[in-house]
Each structure stands twice: as structure tokens, then as C-alpha cells.
């Protein structure tokens, strides 16, 4: 179990429970590293990583870049906005051109579901999925579980509710897989229009009332409404969504227990979560961001061991 069972991190679906445990154990060590006076280790001195972002991102991109740099890897960044993709080049051609400059690993974010898998089958490099459309966002789910484990001791047996735009959320799908593999119970909560039609196949509970969902759970993961992916109106207005599904201090205080509040960012304050909740002690939103670097270092470190030497 001292090695990952996969060569690419395309989705949580492909990982075993042992893989997740191994990533967390390695991340523990990296968390210690990033809290040292010198936050850098020389492990990946001879590795070059390309970050290919075909879609906007602040947190994930920064987090990956920091993780790579703290492992001493060489990093090249690429964003679709300023590239030849606009001139009509295909994904595989773009990536192969980058790889011929001797790049060992590719971190890709792409608006199309399956882009990471497609790439992993066609190029000679280890691929890390940093979000592919509405499909998966594996490192986010790993850091979410890691943060739950850090706050509550373990993930096993915990009840986690994911609230919001489940239909358009890759974070939700990856989280469902990750939490279930670790033995947690998962519920999704949101308006009927934002719950996918085939959600029952994933063996998760569905609830449309926020207060009932919160009463059930130990952890609430509040998602953003992904307006950029919504081609039609799924609810009357943001204000109405916020009235029904926004997490406020009053609702939290009304529960007869203390729950952990998470958010993968970016936060829309006043929509899915109010400022006083986001800034409260129950929220571990900034811990999630810190853990993101450690978890991504662990993923890259473990995958780098799979790079074949000439």
C-alpha cells in the first residue's frame, strides 16, 4: 500500500480507500513542511510540471503552483485565454507540443467533462485533474475530507451534507465518492432543479429542506451557485435561493448541536452563506485552503514516483 494504485489522478472514482489513506498520511508530513521557516523540500528537483488551465481559477491554480514549487519542481503555466487554442489547435496537439519540451506531469483544468481522462489515455505524462467541467475535482474532495479528518478525527461514520448546486458541481461528485469510500454518510440538499436526476444511483440521501438537512449532519459543505454553467433559469432569483438555502447564523444557532461548516470557494457572501457564518469558528474554510497545498503536494509527490526514468 506504499504506492498509489493509479498513474493519473483523473477522479476519486478510480482511487481505493488505501490510496486516500496514503495521500492523507503523506499530506500530514507536507503540512508540517509548509509550516516550517523554510517551506520547501528538494524532492522533485528533476521534475517539470505544466499547469494547463483552460478555465478560470484562482485558488486551485495558486494552490497547485505553490505545491509544485514547494516540492522544488519546475513549473510552466499555460492559460487558454492567451494561447494557440484560440487559433484552432486541438487539446492533444497542445499538450503534446508542451510535452515535447520535456514536461513530466500535467495538471489540467478544462470546461469539458472527461478532458483529463481523455488526455491521460493519449499522452506520455502523468495527468492530474484540476477540475473537468461538471465531472470531478478530485484534489478538492481530498482536501475537504482531509480537513474533516483534521477537525473531527476521522471521516468514517460522519454525516456530511452537500448543499447547493449539485447538478453543476464537480466538487459535489468527487466529494460523494471520497466520503463514501471512507465510510461517511452523504446527503445532498438543494432545490429540485439543481439535484441531478440520477442522484439515487450514488446511494446518497436527498433533502430539500435546509434546516432538516443541517439537523441530520455533522458537517455542511456549502456550494456556490454556478451561474456560469447555468444555461436556463433553475430558480426564480438569487434572493429566493438565498432565503431557502442560504446558511445564516440564526439557523446555525437554532440547531441543538455544533456542526462544521465548509465551503470550497469562491464564496458568494450573502447568497449561500452569510459573512458571520463564513467568519465564525465553526467554519473551516481557510483551513481547507491551507490543507489544499499539503494535499496537492502529497498527490504530486506520490504520482512523481511513477514517472519513468530513461
Amino acid at each position, binding site marked *: 500500500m*506504499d*504506492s498509489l494504485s493509479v498513474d493519473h489522478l483523473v477522479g476519486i472514482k478510480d482511487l481505493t480507500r488505501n490510496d486516500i489513506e*496514503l495521500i492523507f*498520511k*503523506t499530506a*500530514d*508530513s507536507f503540512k*508540517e*513542511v509548509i509550516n*516550517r*521557516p*523554510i517551506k*520547501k*523540500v*528538494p*524532492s*522533485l528537483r*528533476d*521534475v517539470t510540471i505544466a499547469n494547463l488551465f483552460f478555465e478560470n481559477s484562482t485558488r486551485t491554480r495558486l494552490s497547485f503552483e505553490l505545491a509544485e514549487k514547494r*516540492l522544488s519542481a519546475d513549473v510552466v503555466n499555460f492559460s487558454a485565454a492567451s494561447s494557440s487554442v484560440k487559433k484552432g489547435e486541438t487539446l492533444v496537439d497542445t499538450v503534446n507540443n508542451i510535452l515535447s519540451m520535456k514536461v513530466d506531469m500535467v495538471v489540467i483544468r478544462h470546461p469539458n467533462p472527461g478532458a483529463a481522462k481523455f488526455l491521460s489515455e493519449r499522452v506520455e505524462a502523468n495527468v492530474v485533474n484540476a477540475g473537468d467541467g461538471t465531472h470531478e475535482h478530485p484534489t478538492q474532495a481530498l482536501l475537504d475530507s482531509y480537513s474533516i479528518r483534521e477537525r473531527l478525527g476521522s471521516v468514517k461514520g460522519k454525516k456530511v451534507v452537500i448543499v447547493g448546486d449539485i447538478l453543476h458541481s464537480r466538487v459535489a461528485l468527487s466529494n460523494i465518492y471520497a466520503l463514501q469510500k471512507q465510510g461517511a454518510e452523504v446527503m445532498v440538499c438543494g432545490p429540485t432543479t439543481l439535484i441531478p436526476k440520477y442522484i439515487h444511483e450514488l446511494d446518497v440521501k436527498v433533502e430539500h429542506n435546509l434546516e432538516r438537512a443541517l439537523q441530520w449532519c455533522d458537517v455542511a459543505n456549502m456550494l456556490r451557485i454556478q451561474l456560469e454553467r447555468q444555461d436556463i433559469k433553475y430558480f426564480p432569483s438569487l434572493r429566493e435561493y438565498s432565503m431557502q438555502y442560504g446558511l445564516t447564523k440564526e439557523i446555525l444557532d437554532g440547531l441543538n448541536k455544533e456542526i462544521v461548516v465548509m465551503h470550497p470557494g469562491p464564496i458568494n457572501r450573502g447568497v449561500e452563506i452569510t459573512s458571520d457564518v463564513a467568519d465564525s469558528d465553526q467554519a473551516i474554510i481557510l483551513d481547507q485552503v491551507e490543507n489544499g497545498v499539503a494535499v496537492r503536494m502529497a498527490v504530486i*509527490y*506520490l504520482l*512523481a*514516483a511513477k*514517472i519513468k*526514468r530513461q
Partner: protein
Amino acid sequence: MEKQVILNTKHFELTINRLCYQLIETHNDFSNTVLIGLQPKGIHVLTRIKARLEEILGEEVVCGNLDITFYRDDFRRRDIPLIPSATNIDFVIENKSVVLMDDVLFTGRTIRSGLDALLAYGRPAKVELLSFIDRRFKRDLPIQADYVGKTVDTLISERVSVEWEEIEGEDKVVLFTPDTNG
């Protein structure tokens, strides 16, 4: 595998004692010295020396554990990734005398990684090396120990194992020699 005890329980204790007095000769009351064990095996050396030193001095000696996994030079030359142990250094090593400790000094590569790993915690005034066993004749790097428990001359094919009462049940050092055919 032929097995031969090269340091028995009695001599084991004598050796630990001698190393402690040698350390005291150089470092007096340890007010500006910290001891750091290299994970994983060096920790046992550290624990034993620390306990004996504190017994002799009647004062606490500052100690820490250092993991060198991320600083090794053989990452990706192995089939499986190296899995780290915990580092536990909750003090500043700036301007301190540091004594690194490990159980067996062989190629010197572990110590080289240890020196790199140490520098992430500051700039020590001086770094020394204590090795419980020194296997001569197979050094890949120009590294020597300042304090040596026992020097052994071995073939590369042989293996030296330091065993501890708390782990293996008995304090001893064993030399394993592979069987020669005919």
C-alpha cells in the same frame, strides 16, 4: 544468512555510556546543544543517549526527530515512493551546536540528506555526527562521524542490524553474512 553477534547486551550498554561521556566532554552542560535523531532508526539511538545523559547530568537535554525522506537523492530511482516519518523539531537551531544521530553509518547518503533537511530549520553554529555503528570502506561521500560506538569492517553484501530492547527484545548488534556456495 549467517548471523553473528558483534556487540552483546553488556558491551552495548558500555558503548552508550562511553558515547554519553564523550558528548559531555565536548558539550559540557548542553546549554547550547541540541540532539537530533534521524528517522527512523536514529530515534532509538537518540532516546537511549538522551535518557542516559539526563541521568548523568540531572538536567533535561533538548532533543528532536528529523525526517529526511524529502531530501533523499534516490527518489524516483526506487520502484515505490518513499513514505515519510514525522519530524518533530519545536526549537530553533540557529547558532546552536547540533549533534545528529543515526544507528549505522554506511554510504553517508542519509547523513548528506540529514544535513540538507537540517538547514530548513536555520543555520546551526556547528553540526556533529554520532553513529552507533560505523561501517567503513563503503562511503560514497566524504562524511565521517565525530562519535562512533563501534567501527566494523564489512563486505558490501553483508548487513549490520542494531537491535533494541524496546523493539526486538534485546540490545545487540548483529552482522548478517550471506551464505557462500561451496
